[in-house]
């Protein structure tokens, strides 16, 4: 078994015989957050990062060119759910970085709170991502990346409202668009184009689009950048 770096800092590939999977170097030694496999290699623990359970992992596997989430990044994560992807982002940004994890459902947030107890760089926020000013009292300091995975019909609007509240010029955004929760009838392609179009209109630059088939059906990950003063 061997660990190889990828083009993204903090993201690794673990090679085991002919199998190759993504992994992050765990911030907490020997911790398995959601039942994923943990390998101890040399001085570090590596947690396997499943493409089936995390859309960010799927996007990387599908050839994402640029990942703004890096060592030391300040990330605002909307739709954190029980913290599966959040835990890997926490690994990547490290102790110097921070992940503000927003989740509205108290049931999902329970696991998120358990996770945040063991990791000092995760700030759990149980609140509605539609109302960003409700959590401005906790989120102080600048935000580098807004990551969103909320599966709501108005998800583009929610993303934009948060960007406008927290980000300034040069900040990044990643959005996992779920076509089926926006429009259950239209062609997925059309839905993606419409959503991306509306984000562009509000002043964001589209850097990259990655379709997540076959890991997630009817999903697209879009990487955006704030290039106008909002």
């Amino acid at each position, binding site marked *: 078994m061997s660990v190889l770096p990828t083009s993204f800092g903090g993201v690794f590939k673990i090679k085991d015989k002919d199998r190759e999977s993504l992994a992050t170097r765990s911030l907490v030694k020997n911790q398995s957050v959601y039942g994923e496999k943990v390998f101890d290699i040399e001085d570090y623990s590596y947690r396997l990062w499943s493409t089936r359970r995390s859309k960010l992992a799927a996007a990387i596997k599908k050839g994402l060119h640029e990942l703004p989430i890096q060592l030391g990044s300040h990330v605002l994560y909307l739709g954190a759910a029980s913290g599966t992807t959040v835990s890997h982002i926490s690994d990547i940004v490290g102790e110097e970085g921070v992940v503000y994890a927003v989740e509205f459902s108290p049931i999902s947030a329970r696991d998120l709170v358990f996770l945040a107890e063991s990791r000092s760089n995760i700030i759990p926020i149980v609140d509605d991502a539609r109302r960003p000013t409700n959590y*401005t*009292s906790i989120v102080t300091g600048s935000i580098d990346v807004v990551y969103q995975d909320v599966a709501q019909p108005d998800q583009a609007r929610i993303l934009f409202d948060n960007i406008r509240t927290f980000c300034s010029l040069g900040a990044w955004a990643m959005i996992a668009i779920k076509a089926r929760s926006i429009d*259950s009838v239209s062609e997925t392609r059309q839905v993606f184009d419409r959503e991306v179009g509306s984000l562009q209109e509000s002043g964001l630059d589209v850097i990259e689009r990655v379709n997540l088939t076959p890991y997630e059906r009817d999903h697209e990950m879009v990487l955006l950048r704030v290039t106008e003063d909002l």
Partner: protein
Amino acid sequence: MQVHLVPTIFGIFIHDNKGEIILHHVIYPDVSLAVTVTSKIMEGHIVTPLQDLLKQAQSEGFESVIVENQHVARAIEELGTVAVVIDEQSRDIKMFRSMLDDILVREKIVEDRTRVSTFRHDVALRIARSRISEASKSPDLLVKHAIDAIGEIDKNINILSMRLREWFSIFRPSLTRLVEDHNQFAQVIKTINKGGTTKEDLLKIGFADMIAEKISTSFETDMGAPLTGEDLIPLTQLADMVNNLVETRQRMEEYVSRLMQTVAPNITALVGPLVGARLISMAGSLLDLSRKTSSTIQVLGAEKALFRSLKTGTAPPKHGLIFQVPELYSAPYWQRGKIARALAGKISIAAKIDAFSGRDAGQMLRDAFEKRVKEIRTQNPNPPPPKPTASIQGRQGRQRSGRSRRGKYGRRRPSKR
């Protein structure tokens, strides 16, 4: 002068449009104070630190304060000392917030960046925990779990009873036809194990005279293996399990009925506790149900048919879960759509009352619904004439090309939720 007011977990700050702090009230390093102050302000309540700060602002002669959150504005308005303006997109406040971590250290409010991070982590955790506890108090969560448990118990009763019937048919195959009720069937098996196969034994379990007679003769004449030996013991144990499950279900049902009387009395009066509880469970919570449109409530539980209809143009479902209401399932098919619509409308009203006011309007809604059902019955006594296109040929055509058919009626789109 107009100033900006920014409440944070570290303290409450008033700054000018250059981002310079004019007045502030520091909460750091008191974690529990930060938790209560933040939660209170975010619920629109007044807290002493905010009150003190605004008094100071008043004596300094500031005309109004700008805040970016409506809850905070409400809290300040309640106090009435200084005029308040809401600006959700205030650039000055955004700038101030984004620099706050540095400002805290520079102004020596917090010792260093590490303390900023740990304090934030501690406070956020406490707030998140209290939010979760708060949400766990809501009694409709109990309704949801209890009604879901009833559903699961039902499934188990069915599975185990089927097994029991098949298994026992090795010995006496006709019993399964004579006794339809699962609970009674299980009771018969337990009696047999004790050696009771006479009519008197069966009468004791509560069978009617004629059926008891039939069962007891079937024991004598039926085909199958002899009714003895330890082979009957595992069947008895299984039968015991079925009886227990039925009993548990009954108690659970009583529990749900009692809960529903307090959680959603109006829905309960309208459709009964069980259907009402299922609606709440399916919507997620009473609040979620109250926010749904009546057309959504009408087809709640028929999602498969609904999305099939949206995708391929087949007929949309007339009813979902609410089909279990007697007025609906006992109605002839051509009245069901109309009744379902009327009922869903009333449920939606009842849910809103239960969620927000708690007023007792259940009987009124129930009466209105029954009146409407009568109307529908008298207005539509006969089935509609068959549509000319609904011939066998037409049907086949629809299945093959649902898409092209849609053109005839115009493209139907779901309304945006």
